[in-house]
């Protein structure tokens, strides 16, 4: 695939922090490509982003535009930060628009503890969490599943965990889709995917996945009314953030169906510019099978984050000598950033059923969205955006404007500025761990080189990404959270 700068040069300003590449700029484009970025973020995007977002604009059945969020960077198939909606009747579904880590997502848990109470125990706390939540290559979870019970996890998602004692009933209403997306069909999941994932429930994974202890600093609450509604009460309050997904189970489903679609495309007369964009009509047998299997993986990811939440509550309870309810360990929200979902949106004045792909992009539904808990209904859906392990993360809420502009979608992270290999050349993992400890951030990692890959300098400035989202009213800034402890795969 080309990565020449030509397409970048063809992006024209189309308003404040909006850039557009017209369909006439590349053969086969059905709709424009639209990129949301400040001049500085636009300049930092890889040339591959422009190639990839215009390739997405060529896919059959795409509606209105191919979108890229301000954290966009070069991915596989879609850019990371890519959003595209396809007509459910005559459009396609593509594993390259979702990613191998199906329902990779974020969960934020509040605590009633202050930094002053947690700081004296932080090393012990991070050590205990590192033992309780296995991470890295080959990690095995503590939940023992039979194939039959694993199939129930695929269909019931986080609900299965609560039924089996891994969580509280009220956790479920504070998750995208209540932690269970409709349409999961285990009959379309391969035996290989089952055997690859059955022992991994409750594991963190590796790469950029993490479990982090965070604190809201003085000046870190930007919208006190929304913050209070979400359970962010005062500077010094401590939070737990999770970033992980469906593990090997989702990776295998992605692998299986990428190959199936690669072979199926000629039967449907579909040609794509990039083989990683292999796709099939959503209503075809292959499209429906993938949707059923992919949704099963999405539900297993909700279950994974739920089981990890249970372990987090156990560890806090043990270290602080009080039960998790007394400690106030309540889920604020759980949201996906690698999915395709069937959603109804208004297009040119009429409601349409769309297959909305979000690849490294977060759902950001505005106030009044039907699946929001009553406490959040007037402020909008919480959006959790993870930054680098050194610089912190952001809590925002979705907006009515995002519903009109981006199918209710926003960014998912800071976005990388360099490859993992480049980052490893610039710093050693053990040096970074020592430096971070000196700055008050305790790190435990399964892989030292993995820590170097996630250094703060390898990522864009998260506040620059959040500024663009806030300025464009794609989501509204609520709070900034800073790390004090981190577990990495």
């Amino acid at each position, binding site marked *: 695939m080309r990565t020449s700068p030509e397409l970048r040069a063809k992006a024209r300003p189309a308003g404040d922090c909006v850039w557009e590449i017209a369909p006439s700029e590349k053969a086969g484009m059905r709709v424009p490509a639209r990129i949301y970025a400040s001049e500085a973020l636009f300049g930092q995007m890889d040339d591959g982003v422009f190639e990839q977002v215009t390739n997405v604009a060529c896919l059959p059945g795409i509606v209105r535009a191919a979108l890229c969020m301000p954290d966009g960077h070069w991915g596989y198939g879609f850019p990371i930060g890519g959003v595209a909606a396809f007509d459910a009747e005559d459009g396609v579904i593509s594993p390259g628009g979702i990613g191998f880590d199906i329902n990779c997502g974020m969960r934020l848990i509040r605590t009633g503890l202050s930094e002053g109470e947690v700081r004296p125990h932080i090393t012990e706390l991070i050590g205990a969490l590192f033992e309780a939540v296995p991470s890295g290559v080959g990690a095995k979870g503590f939940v023992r599943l039979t194939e039959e019970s694993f199939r129930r996890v695929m269909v019931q998602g986080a609900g299965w965990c609560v039924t089996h004692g891994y969580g509280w009933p009220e956790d479920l209403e504070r998750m995208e889709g209540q932690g269970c997306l409709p349409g999961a069909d285990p009959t379309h999941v391969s035996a290989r995917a089952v055997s690859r994932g059955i022992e991994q429930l409750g594991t963190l994974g590796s790469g950029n996945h993490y479990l982090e202890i965070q604190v809201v600093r003085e000046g870190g609450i930007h919208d006190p009314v929304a913050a209070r509604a979400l359970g962010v009460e005062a500077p010094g309050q401590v939070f737990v953030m999770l970033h992980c997904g469906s593990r090997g189970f989702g990776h295998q489903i992605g692998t299986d169906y*990428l190959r199936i679609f690669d072979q199926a495309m000629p039967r449907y007369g579909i040609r794509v510019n990039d083989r990683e964009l292999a796709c099939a009509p959503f209503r075809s047998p292959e499209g429906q099978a993938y949707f059923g299997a992919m949704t099963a993986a999405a539900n297993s990811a909700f279950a994974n984050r739920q089981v990890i939440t249970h372990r987090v509550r156990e560890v806090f309870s043990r270290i602080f000598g009080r039960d998790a309810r007394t400690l106030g360990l309540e889920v604020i929200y759980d949201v996906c950033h690698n999915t395709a979902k069937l959603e109804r949106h208004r297009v040119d004045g009429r409601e349409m059923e769309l297959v909305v792909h979000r690849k490294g992009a977060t759902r950001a539904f505005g106030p009044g969205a039907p699946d929001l808990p009553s406490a959040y209904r007037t402020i909008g859906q919480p959006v959790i955006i993870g930054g680098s392990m050194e610089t912190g993360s952001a809590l925002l809420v979705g907006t009515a404007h995002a519903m009109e502009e981006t199918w209710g979608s926003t960014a998912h992270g800071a976005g990388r500025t360099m490859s993992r290999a480049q980052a490893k050349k610039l710093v050693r993992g053990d040096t970074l761990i020592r430096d971070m400890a000196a700055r008050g951030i305790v790190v435990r990692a399964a892989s030292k080189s993995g820590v170097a890959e996630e250094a703060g300098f390898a990522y864009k400035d998260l506040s620059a990404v959040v500024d663009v989202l806030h300025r464009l009213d794609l989501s509204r800034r609520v709070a900034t959270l800073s790390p004090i402890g981190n577990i990495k795969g």
Partner: protein
Amino acid sequence: MVDPATLSITVERAVNIEAPQLDLLLYDWLSELIYLKDRDRHIFPVAQVSIAGEGPFRLEAALQGGVIDPERTALGADPKAVTFHQFVLEQTADGWRARLVIDI
């Protein structure tokens, strides 16, 4: 995946794969190694591979490796999948050239 120097060679395994195209055979072969890493926690630093056929193509591999031991094995990146991103397999004057990107 891991530093092979920190892995004891204790496992032998035979793998047989068939695919309609040579590039898919390569995709399936590498996907198999990633699958075994998750299913059995087996890593195979040693492989003897032979390929036959003219479509379908067949791969036979004799693997030697070990089990990941969290106490002893130095862990690296955890591969998720083989991608088709910039995927190239081509015959050259000197043999074969492949370019692959693994999602980690």
